[in-house]
Structure formats: C-alpha cells, structure tokens
C-alpha cells in the first residue's frame, strides 16, 4: 500500500473499531440510566387507597391534559401533574392509551332502592337527587362524609320538593309535604333544612305541555319559596316545563333549572339574560328525547356489555312514555343557544324515568350534550367540574390536589370520541376500586 496514508500499521485500520467501541459504550450507558418503575396495565386487580395512575390523559374537570400522573394517597388526590416524583414501591397503573376523569356527577335523579349501586358501576360517583324521601337522603348522608370502601354513589338531595297539594311530585305514592300560600314558605323551607335538604327544589307544572291539568304553585308562593331558601342560604332550583314559566322564575331570582323546557326555543336575547343572571341549567335531554319517543336506551344497551346492566337498568331503559310528547329538537336547540350565550350547563338524566337508567344514562346524556353543541371537554365538564361548582360541592368533580379520589378510567381518547366513556376500565370511589365492576379489561382502540 503506497498511498498517502502510509504503512500497514497506520492507526487508520483501528479507527472503525474505535468508532464502533465508542458507540457501544455510549449505548451501554443509555441501557443503565434510570427508568421508571414498571406500571401494570388496567385489567388486573386495581390498586386501592395509595397508588398512582401514570402517563394518562387526564380530564381535570375543565380540560384534557395529556401525559399526566395522578397520585392518590389515603383516598384523596395527593397530586396531579406531569412527571410526579412518586415514591418507590407505590403501585402504578399504566395509563397510556386511557383517559382518567373525575367520577361523574348526575345532577338530576330520583333515588330509591339499589340505584346508587347501579350509578357507581357506571362511573357516576356522586348523585344530585332532585326529589326523594328525606329519610332515605338522611340515611345515605354519612357515607359522603367518610372515605371508605362502598358499593354506592354518594347522594346529595333536595329531599321533599315544593309543590301544590295534588301537584306534580305527589303522584308517586310517597308522602309529600305541600304548601299553598306565600306565608307558608319560610316555615316550609326551614322544615326542609331541618330534614337535611341540601337545596330546595320547586315545581311549576300545570301539565299543559302534555295535555293534563295539574294543580301547581302560584307565582307569589314560588317567589316566596325562592326568597326563603336564599334567607336560609340554600340554593333554589326549579322544574318548569314552559319557557314562559322559566323566564318568570329567572326574574324571581332562581339559581338553577332542573330541566330545559320543551315547548318553545329560547330566543338568543333571552339566552343572554340567563347568562347574565348566572343561573345554571340541567337540560336532562335524556328524558326529553325519551318523552319524544327517541330514547337513548337502545343505543346504550347495544354498546354496553350486557352483564354490567342490572335488570332494573334494563327495565327502565326499555320503558316508553305512554304517548310521545313533542319533539326533542326544540329542547336541543334551546340548550345550544343557552350554551352559546355562556349559560352553565350541567349533565343530568332524570333517571329512572322511562327510557333512562341510573348511571348508564349519564353516558347517553354526554352524547346528547355534544349534539347540542358542547365540545367533548364541555360535556364532561357539565358532568364534573361545572356541576360541583354549581352546587357548591368542593371536594369532588375535579382531579386536583385534596379532592376525593372518585375516578373513572376509560380506554381511549375521549376528546376525539366521547362515546368511549362506556369503555370503562376502572372506577374508584374514595380511592377504592369498585369491586369486580369491569372484569373484562377494556383495551384502548
């Protein structure tokens, strides 16, 4: 070899080996650098009380935040954020491909029997009940004050509703305290507070929209109940099935509406008045579509594993109203306008009315809210953060430090496909996994 590089023993023959050796050393060091502790995919038994869900897409009650860790300690959220410094040996659930959200809040149900069990199995960890027996509400109250293994959702309730003798709400065979005049309002509200009502629900229903003639409270009495509730520092919400009544209640200083009316579409100007008043609306589109003969029941049953649906859920989901009432388009359009004007919208189902089921119908309500123009994040906020804020419940509804570890883990990306909320991979209540709820692991798509 007689070119410029010189003799056979020139170091240049070694150069490729040196390069290779250096690259090997480089790779070896990368092989030993610290890696996170292994995390178990959801599907096996879920950890309880103290654990973390790592590298999961979080819906925090307001918006989606990818690649977050959520650290649960003693049944509460200790921290939620990116790349948390987690202690060694803490059980970890691998959240990649999954979305973790606060347990859902159904802001309109009527509770009885085992229904809190059905709700919890579908990730509804808190229920805002809009009329049940005060004794039942009182019986369930201690559970929401403690963090313990449970098979039931927590219950907040209006208890006994404010209606006229023989009015809407008295037809279910449950004894109901009624009132007839404004003068009775302060004592009526004080009695409800004494019973433990978390807020006051008022009924303004003359049956006109479904062809009936029902006794109802007069305007003066309704105004007096609202005033009395505020004097007792309780929220006042109203069932009003006509737009005209809803606008009147708005003038009286009502705090929230537990249905959207079905008779007329609200004008954009009136929607702005709702927004300016700062009220919230729980449209309960699930029952509105069911009343119009367009129940979400069949769709929900079709997309849910049959073994998770209880006989009662199946029964109420497949029931129909005696005769269809109106169409759902007006209600959906009103919600669209209210939302566009900036009115707070809350998700509620009015279960167990015909065509709805406890827990499972919340997943249908989310889809209906999306139909009414809410984004996936806004619909989920209506079922979590916005609902908790509206009713002044401070320790749930958000994935944030100090909140109760009520969690719903679903397979997939809800931002692009909200209907995947039924792909439930796990539910935690007070930091405890809901037992054997979802034995079949749900794989992300």
């Amino acid at each position, binding site marked *: 070899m007689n070119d*410029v590089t010189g003799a056979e023993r020139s170091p240049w023959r070694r150069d490729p080996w040196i390069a290779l050796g250096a690259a090997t050393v480089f790779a070896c060091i990368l092989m030993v650098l*610290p*890696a996170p502790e292994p995390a178990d995919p959801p599907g096996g038994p879920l950890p309880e009380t103290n654990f973390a869900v790592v590298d999961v897409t979080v819906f925090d009650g307001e918006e989606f935040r990818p690649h977050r860790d959520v650290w649960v300690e003693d049944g509460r959220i200790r921290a939620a954020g990116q790349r948390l410094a987690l202690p060694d040996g803490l059980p970890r659930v691998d959240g990649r491909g999954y979305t973790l959200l606060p347990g859902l809040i159904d802001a309109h149900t009527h509770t009885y029997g085992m229904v809190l069990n059905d709700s919890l199995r579908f990730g509804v960890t808190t229920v805002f009940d809009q009329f049940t027996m005060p004794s039942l509400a009182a019986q369930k109250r201690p559970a929401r004050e403690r963090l313990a293994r449970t098979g039931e959702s927590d219950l907040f309730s209006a208890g006994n509703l404010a209606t006229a003798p023989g009015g809407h709400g008295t037809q279910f065979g449950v004894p109901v305290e009624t009132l007839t005049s404004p003068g009775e309002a302060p004592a009526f509200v004080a009695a409800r507070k004494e019973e433990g009502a978390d807020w006051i629900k008022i009924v303004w229903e003359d049956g006109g929209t479904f062809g009936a003639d029902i006794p109802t409270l007069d305007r003066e009495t309704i105004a007096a109940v609202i005033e009395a509730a505020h004097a007792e520092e309780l929220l006042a919400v109203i069932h009003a099935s006509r737009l005209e009544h809803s606008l009147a209640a708005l003038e009286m200083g009502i705090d929230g509406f537990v249905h959207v009316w079905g008779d007329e579409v609200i004008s954009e100007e009136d929607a702005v008045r709702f927004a300016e008043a700062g009220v919230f609306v729980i449209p309960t589109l699930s029952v509105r579509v069911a009343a119009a003969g367009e129940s979400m029941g069949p769709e929900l049953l079709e997309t849910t594993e049959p073994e998770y649906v209880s006989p009662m859920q199946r029964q109420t989901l497949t029931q129909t109203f005696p005769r269809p009432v109106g169409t759902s388009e007006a209600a959906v359009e009103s919600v669209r306008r209210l939302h566009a004007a900036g009115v707070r919208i809350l998700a509620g189902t009015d279960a167990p009315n015909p065509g709805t089921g406890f827990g499972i119908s919340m997943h249908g309500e989310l889809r209906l809210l999306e139909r009414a123009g809410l984004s996936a994040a806004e619909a989920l906020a209506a079922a979590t953060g916005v609902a908790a804020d509206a009713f002044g419940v401070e320790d749930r509804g958000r994935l944030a430090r100090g909140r109760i570890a009520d969690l719903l883990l679903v397979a997939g990306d809800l931002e692009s496909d909200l209907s995947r909320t039924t792909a439930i991979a796990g539910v935690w209540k007070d930091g405890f996994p809901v037992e054997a709820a979802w034995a079949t692991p749900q794989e992300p798509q």
Partner: protein
Amino acid sequence: MAVNTARRGLLWHVRIALLETRFQFLSSLRLPAFAVPTLLFPLFFYLFFAVVFQAGGPSLTAPTYMLATYGVFGIFAPSIFGFGVGLAQERDSGALLLKRTTPMPTFAYLFARVGTAAIFGAVVVLLLFLLAGYAAGVELHRWQWFALAGAILAGVLPLSALGLAIGAWAKQQAAVAVVNLVFIAMSVLSGLWFPISMLPGFLQDFANVLPAYHLGQLALKTIDLDLGRPLWFHLVLVGGQTALCLAVAAAGFRRFSGR
C-alpha cells in the same frame, strides 16, 4: 506520489473519513479554548438550574424538560463553532487551500467536521444524561433515553450547516463574533435556556425561523414535553432551513474559489 485509484472503494472512503475525523478531533481537543467551554457550559447550566434549583421538588418536569433543551444547547457549540470559526480560520490562513491539494476528498473534510461535532456532542449528552439520571432523579423509559439522545445528536447536521454558512462568508476575525452572537441569541430565542413559553407571543412566533427551536421541540417530543406541533412541521421547517444554509454556504465557496 502514486495514487491507486483502484483501491478507492467504499472502505477507502470510510477509512479516509474516519482518519480525517481522528485528526480533526485531536486538533479540536488540543484547543482548550474550544474544548473546555463546549463541554462544561451545558453541564454547569444543567447542574445549576435543573439539579440544585429543583432539588426535592414534587415534579420532575423541569429537570426532564431541561435535559432536552440543554442537550440541544450542548451540541450547538461544537456544531456551529467547528464550521463557523474553524473553517474561516483554515481558509484565511491558507490551510484549506493546502488540504485541497491533497487526494483527500472534500466529503471527508466535511464528514470530519460534522463527526468531531458529533463526538463532542455525544460526550456532552452522555454527561448530561448521567447528571440528570443520577443527580436530578430523571427517569425515562428505555426507548426514550435512546430517542432523546438520537434526536439531540441529529441536530448536529442542521447546526453544522448553519456554521458552514457563516464560515463560508465571514472573515476569520469577524467569524468569532458572528458565531458567538448567533449562538447565544439563538439559544435564548429558541427556548434552550428557559422554556419558550416564557417568551412573549411575538418572539414565540419568531422562533419558527430558528433551526435550534425546531431541534429543541423535536428533542422534547421524545419525552412528551413539546408544545404539541406535529412532527412533520418541525422536520419540514428545519429541513428547509438546513437546505437554505447549505445553499448560502455553496454561494460563499463559489466566491472564495473564484478569487
């Protein structure tokens, strides 16, 4: 001096390129003014801001984030100074002309410059990674350690092209000042010293014209801490900027050769 052209196969090219890299690396190593700050600057920055400042924090986001950005900062200096200053020096001193008279192909010269930057860069990356893993407590999935190292080191190419463009035009004395200015300003404006989100909005938009910004985002993408722009966006822009730098450099060399 007989040159056996028959022996110039692939292996010959590899060997000549590696040999030139060896010499280039040794000469750079023997220039403490280049080697010492290149190696120590990013390490000290990282030690100070990511290890000392962040010790005991509840989240490892900051040390992990800075690992990517100081990594890109770490390869920035060897890449841009090697060509930007070294080339201008060799050209103005006549050393480049001498090299062109040897049978060494031009590509070997370029390879050696890039290779030397990559070796210095790899050393910086390795020391940074060790500091992050064992002093700051950063944990990454195994593939992420490799992906991050790869993403950072791939940045040697666009930044060398930037250095080449400066070295091809600037005079020896001016090159040091120009390269320093570009290096410091671009590091700050690309978010390599502190997160880009801390800069005012119009500067964040401006960062799109800076290759170092895209390299930072590509490195951050491997650890899920980027701003969320798609991969192709950064690849296309940094690719275009590299092509532009090479075109500017080529025009500079034509001017030099024509003199």
